[in-house]
């Protein structure tokens, strides 16, 4: 270890530059991964946390809750299908809300009573008439428990009665209300329009195969498309494109980080070849020298990761109230560990170079 530290300290500018470059790349990977995870959670959270087995959309909606509209009273027909334990109407509409940081867009989700149930509560109680349940991330947007919210247009006022976790929809600040409250808000916003449900949330009876129930529901409700909750989450428009795009960017940034460490240490190893030959001639084992290289790489990656993670925490702290980023410790740890492993593996090339050194060369060519 002391050899590694001494060598890094002997070239402070180079070490600092390498740490900065690695920090920037690790920050890129961490930031992209955080952004991707947040976008995914905010886009699909509402469906992912709905305790339903199946979601029924209109056939024309192509799996989009926004685009789906179902005829009124379809829930009654769905409830009569064999294997269905409970059905609830599900509606979604966007409103404008004034918050402490200015006006923002609010997705109001309406959920019928007697259905599969509400997303698990973190605090407070489930909403009754005029009440809403909000996401735990929305306190900064003025939607803390007990606060009042006035969706515009329409002039109705709702009160936050409870908080749940991870229940955002479409990336927007989201409030969940009873279906009746939701329909009242929609009718108030557009007096000439009809407040019809977007979808149905269905809970299957225990032991009923979901595929078979989906087929029975589709047959009983012509013009609809029935998806399991997992399929509905995967079908959220844009979710898969976001995932693929971010995965590509994260992979390339990760590769760049690993390659930078590998290339630099390969060049440094070649540059110090005489030193390595001399150390080998003086009795240092190839394994020990190889470990010194790996330790240097690890030190650089750890130092860069500390800087990068601190920068991520700062960036998350500076993110907006309506789209709050969170530096998840698990994600940061996974990223740092991956880069560390990648860098150490890629440094096997310079280590191999040291392994091939013949100590006799020091005597032949002093």
């Amino acid at each position, binding site marked *: 270890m002391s050899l590694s530290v001494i060598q890094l300290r002997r070239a402070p500018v180079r070490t600092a530059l390498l740490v900065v470059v690695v920090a920037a790349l690790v920050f890129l990977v961490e930031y992209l991964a955080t*952004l991707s995870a947040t976008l995914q959670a905010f886009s699909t959270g509402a469906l992912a946390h709905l305790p339903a087995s199946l979601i029924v959309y209109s056939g024309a909606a*192509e799996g989009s809750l926004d685009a789906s509209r179902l005829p009124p009273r379809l829930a009654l027909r769905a409830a009569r299908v064999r294997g269905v334990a409970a059905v609830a109407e599900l509606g979604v509409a966007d409103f404008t809300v004034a918050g402490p940081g200015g006006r923002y867009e609010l997705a109001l989700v309406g959920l019928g009573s007697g259905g599969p149930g509400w997303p698990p509560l973190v605090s407070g109680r489930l909403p009754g008439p005029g009440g809403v349940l909000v996401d735990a991330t929305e306190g900064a947007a003025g939607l803390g428990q007990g606060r009042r919210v006035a969706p515009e247009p329409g002039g109705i006022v709702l009160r936050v009665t409870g908080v749940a976790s991870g229940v955002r929809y479409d990336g927007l600040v989201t409030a969940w209300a009873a279906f009746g409250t939701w329909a009242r808000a929609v009718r108030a916003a*557009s007096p000439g329009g009809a407040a019809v449900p977007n979808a149905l949330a269905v809970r299957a009876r225990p032991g009923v195969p979901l595929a078979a129930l989906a087929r029975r529901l589709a047959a009983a409700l012509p013009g609809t498309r029935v998806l399991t909750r997992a399929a509905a989450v995967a079908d959220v428009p844009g979710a898969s494109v976001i995932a693929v795009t971010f995965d590509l*960017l994260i992979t*390339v940034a990760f590769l760049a980080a690993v390659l*930078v460490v590998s*290339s630099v240490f*390969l060049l440094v190893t070649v540059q110090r070849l005489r030193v390595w030959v001399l150390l080998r001639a003086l009795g240092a084992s190839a394994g020990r020298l190889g470990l010194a290289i790996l330790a240097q790489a690890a030190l650089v990656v750890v130092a860069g990761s500390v800087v990068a993670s601190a920068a991520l925490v700062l960036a998350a702290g500076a993110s907006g109230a309506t789209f709050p980023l969170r530096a998840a410790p698990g994600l940061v740890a996974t990223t740092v560990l991956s880069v560390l492993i990648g860098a150490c593996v890629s440094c096997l090339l310079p280590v191999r170079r040291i392994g091939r050194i013949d100590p006799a060369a020091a005597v032949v060519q002093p």
Partner: protein
Amino acid sequence: MKGAGFAASWPVRELWRRRGRFAGVTVTLTVLCTLAVILVSLGSGLWAGATGALRSSPADLVVFSRDSLSLFPRSRIALAAIPQIGRVRGVAAVGALGTLTTTVALRGATASVAVIGAIPGRPGAPAAVVSGRLPRRGEDSAAVDVALRAEGVRLGSRIRQAAGGPPLRVVGFVADQRFELLPTVWTTLTAWQALSAAARPETRTAAPAAQVLTIRLTPSADAATVARAVDAQLAATTLTRSQAILAIPGAAAMRSTINELIAAVLLVAAGVTALFAALYTAERRSELARLRALGSSAARLAAGLLAQAEAPVIIGTAAAYGITAALIAAAPPQFPVALPLTRALGLAGLIMAAGAAGTGLSLLRVLRIDPAITVEDL
């Protein structure tokens, strides 16, 4: 002449002699450049997909309802306001637009599209078509995005909204007019109202309405003055077209985030070049000093060093464009990526500049080599 020949060939010989080492540097820079080029392609594609329809609109001002946060789907303005706004000083013509993201049935398949209704002959609709014509008043027809040709749509084809409403006969094709990342179907405002009522029953209104009004100004009119006058008359929010583009959900935030990421990648590229140049200079210091002592000018050696630093950058950039072009070609047509030549060249220039900036410190070290000291050391 000999000196000039050496100056030109020395960096090339060095690159060749140490090709293994330069290959490692080149691969690293290629990956970094690929990241930058992918980000640029994504940024351009997302921007064009989100804003294309509005960017090519001939309207100077866009009028949103006040509580809409300047979002098309949330805005509603009664068409009865058109004559009133037409009388405002500085207004040359008033049109209206309505948008609807929906699914249409096409020859045995379905496609997600953005239907945009406009009043024929008024500001709002595209200024030009690539073939055919724009819909005329009273027709249930549409000019559609050229991307739908891949789905078998031709002039004369009929497209039907899966949720119902009147079928639209295709009378023309438009290009670069995407909205909400979807190909657009431009139709009349009347047809849009019927399609919206079928797909979004909650948006039905007693009086005919559009989502926004579009205004073309007289040549001498001041946009801000007209916007204030319109806002006062309608209790609305009037934006210039460029402001309306920036108000498209996520468009500005997406663009600035991607630009920040590109800037970060360029900084990293500069840092990596600096590292490699520093390592190279440190390794070759005595050789460079001997060359100075033997008569090579500092400028010539610096130029050689710059050439050796820029060669991997140039190769990396070219390879990155190749890789990205291949990825774009393999991506599905609806994937929002584009690589316009101007942005591609701009980024290439920035990458070169980052590479040159990274070499700066090492160049200074080369320029400071004193030949006299070198001779003493020999």
